[in-house]
């Protein structure tokens, strides 16, 4: 399913494969372990909505179908930034759908940036999250900043 492109060849406007996923209790519990958050009760047992809700990180991670398109990078890819608009909570067990596209790409100081925008919807078609993600493809030998 994954398509691989060089930075030069990846066309602005290309869309990711559509994602449809049921955010099951098992999936949410997996991420609840990962998040280890004080909001854990809302994700495991119950929220003010009366039922457990999906952590926003799960909506982002699953909804960003950008993994279906990979930019080849000798130094690997790193996440450079993320912006999210939160529109609606999602109950555990909801089926979400998501689609995204490459909206911009540019080179800056020898690194290659791609901007992706995704919209995540619930099974009623309502927008639950809008995501803009900045990915950076590194050249060979580029170090990351560890302070």
């Amino acid at each position, binding site marked *: 399913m994954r398509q691989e492109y060089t930075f030069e060849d990846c066309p602005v406007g290309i869309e990711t494969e559509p994602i449809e996923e049921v955010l099951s209790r098992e999936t949410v519990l997996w991420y609840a372990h990962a998040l280890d958050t004080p909001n854990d009760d809302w994700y495991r047992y119950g929220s003010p909505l009366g039922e457990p809700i999906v952590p926003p990180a799960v909506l982002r991670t699953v909804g960003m179908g950008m993994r279906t398109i990979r930019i080849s990078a000798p130094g690997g890819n790193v996440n450079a930034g993320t912006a999210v608009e939160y529109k609606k*909570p999602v109950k555990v067990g909801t089926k979400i759908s998501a689609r995204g596209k490459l909206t911009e790409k540019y080179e800056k100081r020898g690194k290659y940036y791609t901007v992706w925008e995704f919209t995540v919807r619930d099974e009623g078609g309502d927008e639950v999250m809008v995501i803009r993600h900045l990915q950076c493809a590194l050249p060979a030998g580029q170090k990351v*900043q560890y302070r």
Partner: protein
Amino acid sequence: MTTGVANIADIEVGFELPSLSWPMSLGHMRLFSGWPGLNKYGHDEVNQHTSVEVAKRLGRPAPIVAGPQMFACLEEMLVNFFGMDWFTGGKLDTHYVGVLLAGDTITTGAKVIEKVQEGDKTRLEMEVWGENQRQAKVVVGFASITK
């Protein structure tokens, strides 16, 4: 436990949200960046966030915490303070400016920098950040909530 009792209208410029800290272990990183359910979308659960070998091959000092995992720490701080209001009126926009390794701790913070009345709604603008145990910033950005 989620507090989520903030009354946005009562919060003034200069207010700092309660900060939260997360020790990052390789186990947590492997959970966050290694969910096998993403494999069908082209994701490789063996990657620079979960594997010592892959990280070394890419020139990283060790497996690095994924940017979205750091973002999740900011999200959870904001959910913890604003509660369900965050899911319908929140926005978060960040850049990753450093890396975390297993064994590091991230401490998140937010400070209100502007308060705007928009009709019958109030919008708070915040500066947000995450720093490691050496007080070096690893993620910075802005957030807002409108109610």
